């Protein structure tokens, strides 16, 4: 797959920033627990992307790949754990509303 690769790092960085803003907005503009997790996932995508881009531009792609593989494994475990927490909250309140996570006060 021969793809002409733009030489400027800045182009990649712009797309990283867009993904980051998108993920943050997704997390903050919702009241649904699952959608907050989707926002977190988009943030993780943006960081994975940045790691690979960093590997590409610094000529350390093998290292970057090794890091990304570890990140992906951690990501999966965290998603499973968060999913379990979401299910637990759902079972207690029968709803996915974030209001249910604001009961503790003080």
């Amino acid at each position, binding site marked *: 797959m021969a793809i002409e690769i733009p030489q400027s790092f800045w182009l*990649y960085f712009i797309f990283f920033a867009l993904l980051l803003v998108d993920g943050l907005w997704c997390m903050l503009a919702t009241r649904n627990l699952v959608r907050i997790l989707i926002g977190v996932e988009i943030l993780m995508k943006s960081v994975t992307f940045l790691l690979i881009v960093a590997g590409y531009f610094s000529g350390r792609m093998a290292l970057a790949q090794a890091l*990304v593989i570890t990140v992906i494994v951690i990501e999966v475990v965290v998603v499973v754990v968060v999913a379990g927490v979401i299910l637990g909250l759902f079972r207690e309140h029968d709803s996915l509303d974030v209001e249910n996570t604001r009961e503790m006060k003080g």
Partner: protein
Amino acid sequence: MSLMTTLLVVLVLSALWASMTTPLLRAALALALTSAMLAVVMFSLGATLAAVIELSVCAGLISVVFVSVISLTQRRPFKEYLARRRARLRRLWPLPVVLLALGIGLSFVRAPVQIALPLPATDGDVRTVLWNLRQLDLFGQILILLAGVFGVLVLFKKEAKDGD
């Protein structure tokens, strides 16, 4: 616009779709698409092994987790859903505008930091790096998977007892 730029635009568009679409299931699918697009981008940057793993694990496994969570929790009447969608769109409509403006704005800005690229290092094969230099990370992976197994046992234990 080069092919790479097109790929990146599609990547951001699918992430945008994932954050804006109302049905949760569709959002999960859009997230899987985002992962797949990211894998393609990674592949074309030369990160072949990581791309394969991103594709199989993130686009595959994580989607399975999302779909099961969503199917276990969706019990909402259609009317409520429509009302909710209107409220959601009110909160989300600025997002594409903001992203577009940000993208165009940033592309006119010159990179504020000069990056002095380090010398292209003697960078071996990813497998060699992972197994020889990053053993500790591998150990960490094993541990976190172990923790994940305990997590499943602890977090889902009620199900077995209640039987619902």
